């Protein structure tokens, strides 16, 4: 395997059973992540965007071994980590850290900010005593909080401040891969910019690798080298960031780019499209139910993810 690749995901599947009735019989599956593959080179940023509920968080949590994969492989530094036992996971946990989407439910309300950030440092025996305190203080400053916050509790902070506590905790252990699930969506633009600049600086300094999930397409464009677009459990397009924004190929990507609300007053109601999300995933292309150019064939056959230009993959029959 190319040793420049830090993370390689192959045919990853995460399905959740749908249970019904008293006996909780399994009547089907939510195919939250359905056969996705991609790779992330060392020191680069892989952006993941897509519709709400398309499986981004599930993919992230599966890669971090927080949920069980239904199938596929996840190579981290060349080693498939999906078969690893709980006892072997500790070393992975230090190398892969995650900034969670919902800061409130991911911070223990009974722990002070200091102990929240200290926890991973203690578990992995990275620092203790006064060195530990120094590190926590430095981390807090880096994310735009201050050492004075160490003894306070999560509920005393605003939404954006809590998000930054989560970022500080994720960076504490000096991980190799940081999975950021909507890390800046709770932040106002000036702090958002500070955090994004910080993530870039840290990347240069420590050669960090990011898997970066976000809804804000301008943020993703800024931070990412490569961007993948998910729709209903599948990756429908992957391309270098510049290329994706300049020459989007998949109709869903085009729709996304056209729906960005621009900070210009009076361009009201960007929604020039009609779309209905179907009850179930359609038999053919996952996007066929909403796609403006879909035909009968699209509704029956699943388009494969194909390389349409060098490094630019799309899953659409019509591009």
């Amino acid at each position: 395997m190319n040793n420049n690749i830090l993370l390689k995901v192959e045919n990853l599947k995460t399905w959740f059973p749908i249970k019904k009735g008293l006996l909780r019989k399994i009547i089907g599956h939510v195919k939250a992540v359905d056969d996705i593959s991609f790779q992330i080179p060392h020191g680069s940023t892989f952006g993941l965007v897509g519709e709400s509920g398309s499986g981004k968080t599930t993919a992230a949590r599966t890669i971090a071994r927080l949920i069980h994969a239904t199938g596929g492989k996840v190579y981290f530094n060349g080693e498939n980590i999906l078969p690893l036992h709980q006892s072997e996971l500790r070393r992975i946990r230090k190398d892969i850290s995650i900034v969670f989407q919902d800061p409130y439910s991911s911070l223990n309300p009974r722990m002070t900010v200091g102990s929240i950030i200290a926890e991973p440092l203690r578990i992995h025996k990275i620092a203790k005593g006064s060195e530990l305190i120094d590190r926590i203080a430095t981390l807090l400053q880096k994310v735009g909080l201050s050492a004075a916050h160490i003894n306070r509790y999560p509920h005393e902070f605003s939404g954006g401040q809590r998000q930054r506590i989560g970022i500080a905790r994720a960076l504490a252990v000096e991980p190799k891969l940081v999975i950021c699930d909507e890390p800046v969506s709770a932040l106002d633009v000036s702090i958002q910019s500070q955090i994004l600049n910080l993530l870039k600086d840290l990347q240069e300094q420590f050669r960090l690798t990011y898997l970066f999930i976000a809804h804000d397409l301008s943020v993703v464009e800024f931070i990412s080298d490569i961007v993948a677009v998910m729709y209903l459990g599948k990756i429908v397009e992957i391309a270098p960031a510049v290329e994706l924004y300049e020459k989007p190929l998949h109709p869903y990507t085009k729709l996304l780019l056209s729906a960005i609300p621009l900070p210009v007053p009076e361009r009201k109601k960007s929604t020039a499209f009609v779309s209905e999300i179907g009850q179930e995933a359609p038999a053919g292309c996952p996007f066929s139910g909403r796609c403006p150019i879909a035909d009968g064939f699209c509704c029956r056959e699943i388009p494969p993810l194909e390389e349409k230009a060098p490094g630019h993959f799309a899953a659409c029959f019509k591009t």
Partner: protein
Amino acid sequence: MTENGKILSIQNLSTFFDTELGVAKAVQDVSFEIEKGKTLALVGESGCGKSVTALSIMRLIPTPPGRIESGKIFYREHNILEFSEKQMRGIRGNKIAMIFQEPMTSLNPVYTIGDQIVEAITLHQKKTYEQAWSMAQEMLDKVRIPDPARRMSEYPHLLSGGMRQRVMIAMAISCKPSLLIADEPTTALDVTIQAQILDLLDELQQSENMSILLITHDLGVVAQRADDVAVMYASKIAEKCSCKELFKNPLHPYTQGLLHSLPQLGTRQKRLNTIAGNVPEPLNFPSGCKFHTRCPIGCNDKRCQTAEPELKEVSKDHFAACWYAPGYEK
């Protein structure tokens, strides 16, 4: 007393928290009004007091440690700060509804989605369980949750972040409130669904004449959906005007910095612009203008460092709290 067209009028609201380290003045002297059928956007730096303002209107500030120190909040012609908790319950969730910033804090993990929306409906409307159930399912469909019938019997932790947010929205609009407080309602949604949800709110605004207090840091959303904007900085309102005016002619240096920090799509910036320095803490606000430590004009100016500028009208319907805003009477 408010005039006819105002649904909400906040006058000199101050909300404080007693902490071990002293009094955190989270909101100070905030005033604004919202007209029937209009949207006011409240923007500002993380921690500046937007959610605390919203929770004050809902009378949901945890007391202690929090307290509404002073001010008046008129809903139509009633100062709801004088309402009893019982009177407040008749209004909360019914006439004034709120979409909370973090869905998981207000969804109960042990009840199904359906039961929670049904409860919100039956609390204020005379409906049978069955009627409320089908209304709830309809609401889920309206907020574009796929397969709503199945989702009704699911628990919140099975939903994606954006789905939880949409459940909250469904709950909040199920009683057709006359004022909707939406605290970062679309942060977890992709732009296409975000646009649909905002369109849905627009529709309600038109059919029910609903007013919206929209708290968001997405200036794109502000530009396209708000009639008026209030910009908060460190517990106070720094600037207030129509939406058009704000983008065309921002007067407060903080607002200018904010607009300047926006990532520009399609430009491949190497670094993003930021406002230098950190947000001041309520326990440790700087003297003078609270923005002076970060302000390109104020950092070296005696007046800015020592005296705090009040919010004043600097041109018609345009208010700013800055000694150096054009038109500001010193």
